[in-house]
C-alpha cells in the first residue's frame, strides 16, 4: 500500500509532515488521495470543503489536505497554506481549454508568502485518457521552467490506475526530508 511506504520514510527527525493538494476542479485531487489510501475511487463527487487524511505510524504523522478546486471556493485556499511542507498541484491533462486558467492559479499560488519554500510536485493526471497532453506539453504551457527558489518536479500519472502516484509522492517526501535535514 502506497501510504505505508510513505509513512515509513518519515523518521523521527521530522515527526510531522503536511502535504496540501490543490488544482482546478475536476483535476482528480480527491481521486488521487483516495487511491493513496487504498479506498474506492468510484463515485467521487466534487469536493466543496476539504478531505483530510491523517496517518499515524509509530511516532510519525502525515497529514494530507485536499481542498475543493471550484472557482467560488479558491479564495478560501489561503486558509490552508500555513505549515505546508509540500504542495501537490494536480493538472487534468485532458482539459486543454482550461490550461491557461490552471497556469494562472498555479503561479498565483507560488507567489504566496506562506507557501514559500514548500516543495512542489505537479501531477499531470488522467494520462490513461486518449488525447491527454504529455508532461512536456504541460510543462511548456505552465512555464514551470520559470519557477524559482523552490524545489519542484513534474510527474505523469493516472489516479485511476495508480501509475506514477508513488513516484511522485516518493519524490516530494524525500525532498521535504532533505530540506528539513539540511536546515533543521
Amino acid at each position, binding site marked *: 500500500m502506497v501510504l505505508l511506504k510513505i509513512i515509513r520514510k518519515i523518521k523521527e527527525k521530522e515527526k510531522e509532515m503536511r502535504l496540501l493538494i490543490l488544482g482546478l476542479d475536476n483535476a482528480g485531487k480527491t481521486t488521487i488521495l483516495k487511491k493513496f489510501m487504498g479506498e474506492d475511487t468510484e463515485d467521487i463527487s466534487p469536493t*466543496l*470543503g*476539504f*478531505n*483530510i487524511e*491523517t496517518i499515524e*505510524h509509530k511516532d510519525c504523522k502525515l497529514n494530507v489536505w485536499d481542498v*475543493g478546486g471550484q472557482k467560488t471556493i479558491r479564495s*478560501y485556499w489561503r*486558509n490552508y497554506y500555513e505549515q505546508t511542507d509540500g504542495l501537490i498541484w494536480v493538472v487534468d491533462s485532458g482539459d486543454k481549454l482550461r490550461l491557461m486558467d490552471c497556469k494562472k492559479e498555479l503561479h498565483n499560488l507560488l507567489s504566496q508568502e506562506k507557501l514559500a519554500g514548500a516543495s512542489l510536485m505537479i501531477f499531470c493526471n488522467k494520462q490513461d485518457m486518449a488525447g491527454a497532453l504529455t508532461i512536456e506539453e504541460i510543462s511548456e504551457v505552465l512555464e514551470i521552467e520559470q519557477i524559482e527558489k523552490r524545489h519542484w518536479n513534474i510527474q505523469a500519472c493516472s489516479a485511476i490506475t495508480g501509475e506514477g502516484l508513488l513516484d511522485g509522492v516518493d519524490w516530494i517526501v524525500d525532498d521535504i526530508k532533505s530540506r528539513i535535514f539540511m536546515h533543521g
Partner: protein
Amino acid sequence: MESDLTVEMVENFSPEDAKAMDKPAEMFYCKPSDNTYKIKFIRYKLRDYDSGITLADLEHPDIDEEQLLSDEIPDEERVINYKFGPDFLDLQTIGTQLEFAVGDKEVKDFLMIEKHYFKDRILKDYMFDFKFCIPNTVNTWEQIYDLPELTDEEKEEIIENPYEVKSDTFFFVQDKLVMHSRAIYDYSPFDV
C-alpha cells in the same frame, strides 16, 4: 472531581483544560445550543486498514437545525453507545472517517481534542487542528492509526466490563467550546 466543577469552570472550559483531563467527564461541558456554527455530523465510518474491510458505517439521522440545537434532549440520550464485540480489540491499524457539515458561518481555528479511557486510565488521546471550514460545506477527515497495544489480561478486563471504555471529544472554535461528544463502548460478545 465533578463535584468540584463550578459552572464558571465549565463556561470557560479551554483547550488547555481538555488536554489536562485524566478521567472521563461525567457530564456535558456544553449544551447543544452552544453549537452556533451548526456543525453537524453526517457519517462515521470505521475500517480495518490492513484488510480494507468496513467495520462500521453509521449515518447520522438527518435532523433540522431546530433539532440540532435543541437543549431538550436528556443527557443520557446524548451519550453515544458503541457495541464493537471482542474481535475489535485484536485489530492493529484502523481508519476512522468523520464526515461533517458546517453552517453559513466561517469556522476559524477549529480544534478537536479527543480522549479514550478505560476506567480512569487514558488509552489514547489526540488533537487535530482543522484550521478552517468554508461556510456551507461538507468535509471529511480520516485518521489512520495503530490501536493501543493491550495485554491479553487487559483485553479480557475490557471485554468483561462493558461501557467502562469511554471517550470525550471536545470541539473548539477560537478556543471556545462549541461541542462535547461523549461515547461509551462495549466489547463483550454479541448475543447469538
